Structures are given as C-alpha cells and as structure tokens.
C-alpha cells in the first residue's frame, strides 16, 4: 500500500475544507439552525409529540442525515471532478497509486468532512432542543456508514459527470427530494397507507429511521432492515467503483 499517497491526497482534501470553512462548515450550520427556528420552534410548537418525542427533537436525526447525505455527495463528487475539469488528474493517474488507495483517500476525506459537519450540527441542535442519545455506538456507526456510502456515491457521480450541470443533477433532482420525502420532518406512519408503501421504496427512509432509532429507540422500520439496506447500498457503490476502475470508465479512455 502506498500510504504516503493516501495521506497526501487526504491532507489536501481536508486542507480544502478548512480553506473554504464558510462554505464547508458555517453555511450548513446556519441552514440547520434556520430549520430549527422554522420547523422546530415556529411550526413545531403547534405540532404534538411524535412517538412520545417533541417535534423539535424528532427532526434532529433527519436534519443531520439531510446534511450528511448532501455534503458527502457534494464533497466527494467535487473532489474528483475538479481535477478532471482542470486537467490535474493526469498526476493522479500517472502516480504509483492503486484504485483502492485513490478511493480510500478521496472517500475518506469526503466522509471525514461530512462526519465532522454532522457532529457540529448535532452540537448546534443541542442548543435548541434537549437531546438524549440512547445508542451512541449505533449513532456513530450509522453516521460513519452513511457518510462513507454516500461519499462513494458522490465519487461515482464525480467520475460520471462531464459538466458542472451534471455534477449538480443527481444531488438536486434525486437526493434532495428523496431526503425530504424520507421522513426527515415526519414519521412515515403519519402518511396514508398508499403513500407509506410508496415511501418504503425510498432508501433514505431506512437511513433516517435507523439513525433516529439510535437517538430515541423508536423507528419507522426495523433497525435491522435499516442497517441491511445501508450495507446493500454501500455494496452497490463499491461494485460500481470497482467496475469504473477496472474499465477506466471516463478516466483512462
């Protein structure tokens, strides 16, 4: 393993986050705070408890997941797309670096940034609502697993994209709607039966449900199913990345 290369890429990726701290950290924290003000305080004060949890506290796991998904995809897709766009990817492709090392470095960097952001949002949320985490280990496990999975997904988008428009396409048109419809702000049990069934085809439901379970011990779907679905999505992303590197898809052709 060329760990020095992994470290070199990882360090540059982390340095970029700290160089753009306003965009990377401050902006999502402000957005999340606004969600708490609008949904938690203004609207939430008129909504009764859900599953015995105050509405303000109920939306915390969903809000963290919302940022975790979008930021993981955005960080990883931009990290690999930008060198492709400016042409500096030649250096990565000509270096004695294996595919695994490239993925570890880029996905590791993107996931680290997202996890840090998730924890900052958690800390911000604790200023607005009283928080109690019943299963801290599983909370961290879901956090890490989701960040890694969606960073891998972002990495795939970054390699696939041929323009900045395409880079934004999947996060804007697919991920954000799925996240909003995935139970961030409500329990899917509140939906009519038909829509509840439809929602079960949304993979984000399982992520948010499992993550919420780690906080409050309550979930829309079984935690085992949530974990299983996350692992399945991770496996699909790993398989696609392996195929990309084996064929050189949009990298070496």
């Amino acid at each position: 393993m060329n760990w020095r290369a992994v470290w070199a890429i990882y360090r540059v990726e982390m340095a970029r986050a700290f160089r753009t701290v306003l965009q990377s950290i401050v902006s999502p924290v402000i957005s999340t705070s606004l969600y708490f003000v609008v949904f938690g305080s203004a609207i939430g004060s008129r909504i009764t408890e859900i599953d015995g949890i105050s509405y303000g506290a109920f939306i915390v796991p969903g809000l963290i997941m919302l940022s975790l998904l979008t930021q993981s995809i955005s960080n990883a897709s931009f990290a690999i797309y930008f060198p492709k766009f400016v042409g500096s990817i030649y250096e990565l492709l000509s270096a004695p670096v294996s595919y695994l090392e490239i993925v570890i470095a880029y996905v590791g960097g993107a996931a680290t940034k997202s996890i840090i952001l998730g924890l900052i949002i958690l800390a911000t949320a604790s200023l607005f609502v009283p928080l109690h985490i019943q299963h801290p280990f599983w909370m961290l496990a879901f956090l890490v697993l989701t960040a890694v999975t969606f960073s891998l997904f972002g990495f795939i988008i970054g390699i696939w994209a041929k323009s900045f428009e395409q880079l934004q396409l999947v996060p804007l048109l697919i991920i954000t709607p799925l996240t909003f419809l995935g139970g961030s702000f409500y329990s899917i049990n509140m939906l009519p039966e038909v829509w509840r069934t439809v929602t079960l085809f949304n993979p984000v439901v399982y992520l948010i449900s499992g993550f919420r379970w780690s906080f409050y011990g309550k979930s829309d779907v079984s935690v085992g199913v949530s974990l299983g679905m996350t692992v399945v999505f991770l496996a699909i992303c790993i398989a696609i990345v392996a195929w990309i590197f084996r064929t050189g898809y949009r990298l070496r052709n």
Partner: protein
Amino acid sequence: MSSTISPSIIAISGVTKTYATGFKALKEINLDIERGEIFALLGPNGAGKTTLISIVCGIVNRSSGTVTVDGHDIGKDYRAARSLIGLVPQELTIDAFETVWTTVNYSRGLFGKAPNPGFVEKVLRDLSLWDKKDAKAITLSGGMKRRLMIAKALSHEPRVLFLDEPTAGVDVELRQDMWAMVRRLRDDGVTIILTTHYIEEAEAMADRVGVINKGEIILVEGKAELMHKLGRKRLLLELRTPLTAVPDAFSRYKLELSPDGTQLTYTYDNQSERPGVASLLRELEAACIQFRDMDTQNSSLEEIFVNLLRQEP
C-alpha cells in the same frame, strides 16, 4: 523483473490505441528509448505524440501491445514502472488554489516518497521558484506555472522525464533556461523524452529523433545522421543563357535544371572535405556556361520532416 544491462530504459512493442469512437490514434508502435538519452518525438498536431506518452505514463489505457519501463511492465508492475517516471504535460494543469510548496510536496507524496524538504527546496531553487514557494499557483505567470509543472514532475526524483511540448508558448529566455535544465538532468543520468513540433528544439537538444505521423513511427535516427542530412546544401546558379539540357560532361555532379532552363541546382554535402563547388564552377567556366547570380540554401530538418510527412500516404 528489473534489467540493469539493457540499453533501453523504455521498450514499446506493438502498441495500438483505438478510441471508443473508432479513431485509431496509434497503429502498432515499436520504439526503444535508450538509457540516459534525450529523445525528441516530432510530429504534427494530432499525430499521436500525447497519446503515446499518456499510455507509457498510465493515463490512457492501450488497446494492445506491451510497454516496459526499466524492465517493469506498465500494467502488471505499474507501481515500479510509474515511480520511475516524471511527466510534464502540455497543458498548464495545476490546482490554482494550492501554494507552490504544498503542491510540489503533494506530488512527492503521491509517488510514495518520504518528505524531504531539502530536496524540494533544491528543485525549487534550480527552477527559480524558491521566492514563490508560498505563492498560490493562480498568482504565477505562465512561465512560472510551466516551471512549477516541471518541479512537480521532478519532486519524486524520476529516472525518466517526459516533457510534452515543454516550450509551447514560452518566451525565448525561459526556453533557453529549460534547455539548460534538461541538459543538466541528462548529465545526472535522467532519460528525457520530449515531444515538440519546434524542429529547432529537437536540433538543439536531442541525441535521437523520432517522427510520428498518423499514429505511426515513420523515422527514428540519431541526431548525427540527421545533421548529416542537415549538412546538405544547394548551390543555385542563375544562367545568363538558358540551357535545353545539362551537358553530359557534368553528369557526375547530378545537376538539376529548372523547367525554363535558366537555373542549375547542385546539391552537395558541405561537411565533406571536397564538396565539389570549386571544381564545378571551374568546369562551367571552361564549358562557357556563364551565370549572372548564385545563391546557397541549407536543407533544414524542417524540410526533411515536411518531406517525410508528404511521402506518407
């Protein structure tokens, strides 16, 4: 398996590249680069120079054929092969927001080398970049960016350096500096492969020259042989009275007569001890063939190059 006795540091055998569009960028390339030489790869735009370099460096997958670098196959043993190579691409492609120091150290790390601030400092000083080590790449001039690309390529102490159009768009002073730097590297044992469409660059630098056109290598020769061709000159004689044919007495000079019979051309080797110019002029005078003006022309490498390309189907 590493070979220390082979004179070839790069062996390219039967390499082809066909893009997904069906375009054949390279057709059966066979080429050996000798250890420690400066090899110039000449060719017009779109001839396949950059594709060939990109394949050797691992940036583009080849369709078929094999390439070894110091005995290491670029596919099976890519780590050993790539760690020997430094590449300076044609385009100025640098992360604009990184500092000179950061980006050069990043390149060194990427190639698996332990940090060595002293060596990186030496590289930057050699390239007159030390004063700019804390400057972001975006603030550098075009010439400095080019130097930075070279610094990145040299940061991991490569034994083979590819320079793809290194002096495209750079001023005369920087061009001279680069040539001097390339010679220093060669003196240190680094093998240099440069692609260029500036013929004078190949003349000034190369030990050997290869010409590629339409994805095929059409010539590989040492510079000494090419200089021999460069040494050929033409003597042009404007005749006072047109001739209908060259007299048989001059057949040994292989003179060429222009269609209108007013100009005689004598092609000779000016590096020869007896080029025959003086004897030709004496014999012309003796034969009462008078001329009103004369001129000489060099046959340049550029002419040879252009003629080679014209001969291609």
